């Protein structure tokens, strides 16, 4: 049994629109233990992206509790949330979100800049991670010179560079072909299996979700299902 890294209790998020208050999350209770690999699925508008944003400390809930590694982060201000992101959370996005004018190495090292790591060790650590995702020889390529799969691997290296306790991947294969998707998902599964990395993945593709070991289904801002999944075995 793993210790709960994330504990969420009765979490609500409302959006205020012209039509009044629209609940995006409507009472979520969830625990995720360290070392878990969780896939979140659901139709668009089900609240899974909103949930990911709150999970990643990019946004704050309207109501409810969010304990991250024992700390209540639901009510933190923007700068404290930034500190949590900087120290403990890595992101992988659908659109890669690399900075176009920086080479792969600098992109990977970027989180360390904001964590206050010295330049020499930043570069060393970034090079290490590029090596681990198999891009050691592309360190000085810019994103435009890399394929989609390579860009996403750079993004994964960036997410891992500050040794996070949690990596969030939002549709990480959404912009990739099937072959490359498999490649990326294998990297995720391996990181989870061999290094005990806690991973939360949002996807709407069942076979992508199949790499995870637990599957949480969202519908209308609530959790509609929570089941054990394939465990990345295909």
């Amino acid at each position, binding site marked *: 049994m793993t210790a709960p890294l994330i504990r969420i209790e009765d979490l609500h998020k409302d959006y205020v629109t012209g039509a009044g208050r629209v609940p995006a999350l409507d009472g979520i209770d969830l625990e995720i233990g360290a070392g878990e690999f969780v896939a979140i699925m659901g139709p668009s508008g089900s609240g899974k992206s909103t949930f990911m944003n709150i999970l990643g400390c990019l*946004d704050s809930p309207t109501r409810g509790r969010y304990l991250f590694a024992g700390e209540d982060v639901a009510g933190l201000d923007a*700068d404290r949330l*930034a500190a949590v*992101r*900087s120290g403990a959370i890595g*992101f992988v996005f659908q659109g890669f979100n690399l*900075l176009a004018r920086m080479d792969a190495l600098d992109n990977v090292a970027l989180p360390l800049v*904001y964590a*206050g790591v010295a330049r020499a060790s930043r570069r060393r650590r970034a090079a290490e991670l590029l090596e681990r995702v198999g891009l050691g020889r592309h360190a000085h390529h810019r994103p435009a010179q890399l394929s989609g799969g390579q860009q996403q691997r750079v993004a994964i290296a*960036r997410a891992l560079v500050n040794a996070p306790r949690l990596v969030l991947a939002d549709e990480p294969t959404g912009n990739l072909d099937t072959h490359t998707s498999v490649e990326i998902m294998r990297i995720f599964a391996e990181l989870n299996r061999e290094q005990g990395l806690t991973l939360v993945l949002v996807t709407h593709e069942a076979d992508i979700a199949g790499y995870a070991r637990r599957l949480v289904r969202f519908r209308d801002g609530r959790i509609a299902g929570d089941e054990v999944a394939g465990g990345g075995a295909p």
Partner: protein
Amino acid sequence: MKLDDLAGEAWRALGANRLRSALTMLGMVIGVGAVVLMLAIGAGAQYMVNRAIASMGTNLFIVLSGASTSGGLRFGAGTTPTLTLDDAEAIGELPTVAAVAPIAPGTAQFVYGASNWSTLVRGTTPGYLKVRDWPLAEGRMFTRAEVRSSARVVILGQTVIENLFGGADPLGRVVRINSSPYTVIGTLAPKGQSLDGRDQDDVAIIPVTTAQRQLFGSRFPGTVRYLLVQARSPKLMQRARRQMEALLRQRHRIPAGQPDDFTIRNLTALAQTASRTARVLSIMLGAIASISLLVGGIGIMNIMLVSVTERTREIGIRMAVGARSRDVLLQFLLEAVILSILGSLVGAALGVGIAWLVSELVAMTVVVTLWSIVLAVVVAAAIGIFFGWYPARRAARLRPIEALRYE
């Protein structure tokens, strides 16, 4: 996050769009260049005026004879010779007066060998050099004994020497002034133009008695046209004036209630006015140039606003990987400050360069002062901070999820 890392990020961001950064900087370049150049021109004008003033002598009064009334008819200053050499002596003994020089002026024809030249001759006393702050280039001034004996000695200004002697050494030579021989015993150091543009070096000095008795003759021997009086210090000017008035009224036996038969004018006041005019001119030039500095600053704000909008997604990414709003604020602020400081350094160099060109080509005096450059660069940096603040704050206040979603 350390400042040098932020500066590195800012520098790279600017390097990513070099043409735009250069064009933005151009505003500051022109602004600072204009300020440095205009201040240099203003300081040059001030320098010229101050030099002209210094060449006139400091703490100076001119005492004119005249303003007399005869049978109801009033005559202008200087028409009736009431000032005597004894008056000059007496004024010289006042405690507030440093030096006094009676002046008997006139023009005369100078001949040396085959050359001849007409120039202004001032008959005066040894005190003249002190009153005018005018050192000799070579030789000596005539003595009081030579004044008493009406010696035929002369001290020549540089322009006269040039025209009579060419390159030859004039000391000890004998020149003919209106046909009488005079020995050249000294030469005056060059003084340049006066405030009203006259060549001050086109002059010769002889003992006042020689001028009156031999060279010009005088209907009123022993009197002079005017006196130059130097007070001991600027603070003593007022008191010196009062003492001179009292002394001259007493010596001329003017009863109380009657007007003076002399006029005392403060030459320094005139000079101060000229100096103030030059300073106002200099400030005005600087102020006009500062407007372009302001425009340059607005240019920076404009570009930074565009840049923030354009890089919204980048800001979102930076925030997602741990940048605090302060980090984002500082980075954009630094970009603005780097632009303005770099621009101002280039502008200062350009301003100095053009100032040099102007002084070479137009023969105009420009004085580039270090403080004007320092001032311009500091003001430019302040403008960078001021105009960079608003765009930077806009960037820092973006919410990460919205910034990430921005297309």
